[in-house]
């Protein structure tokens, strides 16, 4: 391969995060780019490859295109070189006529980070960035065309769950209503019971006549009672009105025992 004397062609295409409504298009360590269709037609041969260059946003101006495939900065060099290249794809995959998935996911290869691989791979991004990306068409003689740098892409930052405050914003009014009404009902009942018991105890202590209060009678079992001969009344028994005691059977007046 001969190395090309001319600098790579500047394509007007600007890479961007996929405009589709995808919830996971930007996560904490990955992002999904729109696939550049028809961008490299006219510049690319069948053997060329399209690379994605990823750099920290403040290091994108200092990025120098590699002169050959052997010089491509690797994913493992991102912390020091502040940039790397990945997603090596045949240029024919980006042509107008190729059917293709709609997005390119940067950072999807988790095996890349764990093993000590020395080949270009698509590892997850180590920090939220921001990053800028551009596509680079590499032939066997070096870069043939490049797109423009994208806008800075900032990845998600996750907060700690200790910042979540689980306390309810305000006490509901229903609790207050239930508690207050129930408390007042309970207090009223307790007062009524104590009052009734206290009145009975007071009454029995003072031997007061409570006969007129009783109005409820036990159910009497009726049985035939022959008319009784007139008997002298017991001394403590009061008839009402006094002096009008009959011998005929009548409903017994309540007596004090």
């Amino acid at each position: 391969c001969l190395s090309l004397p001319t600098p790579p062609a500047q394509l007007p295409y600007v890479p961007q995060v996929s405009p589709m409504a995808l919830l996971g298009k930007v996560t904490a360590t990955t992002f999904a780019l729109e696939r550049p269709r028809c961008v490299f037609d006219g510049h690319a041969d069948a053997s060329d490859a399209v690379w994605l260059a990823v750099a920290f946003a403040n290091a994108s101006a200092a990025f120098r295109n590699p002169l050959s495939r052997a010089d491509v900065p690797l994913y493992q060099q991102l912390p020091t070189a502040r940039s790397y290249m990945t997603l090596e794809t045949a240029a024919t995959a980006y042509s107008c006529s190729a059917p293709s998935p709609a997005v390119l996911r940067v950072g999807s290869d988790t095996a890349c980070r764990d093993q000590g691989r020395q080949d270009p791979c698509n590892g997850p991004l180590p920090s939220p960035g921001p990053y800028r990306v551009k596509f680079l068409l590499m032939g066997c003689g070096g870069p043939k065309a490049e797109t423009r740098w994208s806008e800075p892409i900032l990845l998600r930052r996750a907060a700690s769950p200790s910042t979540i405050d689980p306390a309810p914003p305000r006490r509901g009014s229903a609790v207050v209503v239930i508690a207050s009404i129930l408390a007042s009902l309970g207090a009223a009942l307790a007062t009524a019971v104590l009052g009734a018991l206290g009145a009975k105890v007071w009454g029995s202590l003072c031997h007061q006549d409570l006969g007129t209060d009783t109005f409820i009678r036990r159910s009497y079992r009726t049985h035939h009672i022959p008319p009784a001969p007139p008997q002298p009344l017991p001394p403590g028994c009061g008839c009402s009105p006094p002096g009008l005691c009959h011998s005929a059977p009548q409903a017994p007046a309540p007596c004090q025992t």
Partner: protein
Amino acid sequence: MAKSDDCVHILQGLLVFGNVVIGMCGIALTAECIYFVSDPHGLYPLLKTTENGDIYAAAWIGIFVGLALFALSILGIIGVIKASRTLLLVYIILMLITFAFEMASCITAATHQDSFTPELFLKQMLERYQKSEPANNSDNEVTKTWDELMIQNHCCGVLGPSDWQEYTSAFRRTHSDADYPWPRMCCALDAQRLPVNLDGCKLGVPGYYNSNGCYDAISGPVSTHAWGVAWFGFAILCWTFCVLLGTMFYWSGIEY
């Protein structure tokens, strides 16, 4: 005296009717609380760990209060018909004790219902789901409960899958963000509980993941539980209050 006899009979009739209603409501309360305690939605492990398990204590109290109300209502009916001071005094005292217990259950249920905010479940889920060294068995139960919840209700997280993106979590410590933006249970699963399209799920393509939050599936049954215990108990207590007042008036009028 016929008029006061009629009044007495009316009072007796009302008290018997009141006690019949109390008995039936007691049975209904017992049945309702047994239903809640049986945890048909499998949400008890989530509530147990958030110090809000008291709502189950309220339901347990409701079971026994309901049975006590039924038994006491029978005692009350017998006492009213026989006009027995002893029976009615026992009835009043035991009813007061039952009233106090049911009051505690109602207030507990109403208080805890307020505290079921989304943030409560979110914090618990983030801290305990898929915890790698589970401190005790309850963490495993939380994980299993959440997995079943997400599969059965086709939901993810408390407010949505972005819960897993917005906050770090115990899950995130063992599962990398690139491979697991959200748990696998959030993906649309086939009959073998494997994701239908894993890449689509990771990217968030509509149709391949559950985009709803599970908060509605949790708070719906739990709120019903809390309101059922609180408000039904409150209604029973209001009715019981009236019946008890009538019984006390009746008791004070019975001759020795």
